[in-house]
């Protein structure tokens, strides 16, 4: 079941904050976040596991609400280097052998 990401696209000025949301209709074991810059491979940002935690990496952090089956990625004081497409990938608890399913991505553009 493909997770739903919102917004589809967002434009920010340097220094502004953004939130990207990822929601699933299924119970989740984990949520993964990746960033892909234009013409490059997706790069891992973080994994949030069932059990509830908020992770951070410099000015990028994320939360995972298991009950709501949602995760949010927070980008604070955005930099030009944050531009790219952000994907969440969800791992469903009862999915058995099915792999990580990625959302359609959120295109983030940071302008000077």
């Amino acid at each position, binding site marked *: 079941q493909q997770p739903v990401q919102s917004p589809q696209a967002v434009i920010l000025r340097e220094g502004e904050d953004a939130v990207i949301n990822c929601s699933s209709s299924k119970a989740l074991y984990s949520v993964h976040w*990746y960033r892909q810059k234009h013409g*490059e491979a997706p790069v891992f940002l973080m*994994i949030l596991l069932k059990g509830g935690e908020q992770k951070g990496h410099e000015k990028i952090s994320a939360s995972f609400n298991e009950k709501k089956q949602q995760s949010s990625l927070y980008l604070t004081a955005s930099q030009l280097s944050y531009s790219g497409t952000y994907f969440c990938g969800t*791992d469903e608890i009862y999915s058995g*052998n099915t*792999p990580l399913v990625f959302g359609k*991505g959120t295109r983030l553009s940071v302008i000077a």
Partner: protein
Amino acid sequence: DTAVSQTPKYLVTQMGNDKSIKCEQNLGHDTMYWYKQDSKKFLKIMFSYNNKELIINETVPNRFSPKSPDKAHLNLHINSLELGDSAVYFCASSQDVWGRTEAFFGQGTRLTVV
């Protein structure tokens, strides 16, 4: 040293041809994957191999055949190429078989079928 490398980076070919894409990882991971990213950027799993064994085959036409000679390599062979096969194909690897750990992606192979 590139962690996950795939060749070629670009591939332009005519309909009906057969082509292969190679992938190698030097991370010591047990699991390797092939993903297809279409023009709308949708990233979809195609195959997953764990220690040379096929784990996941996601409703991919049987014209696509993955081969894993050892756990560090996962190649993708495509027969009778069609226009709809045009996409970017990414190889990836992770330590965990169910994708519950970080995945490392190769730089992608942009396949154009004309």
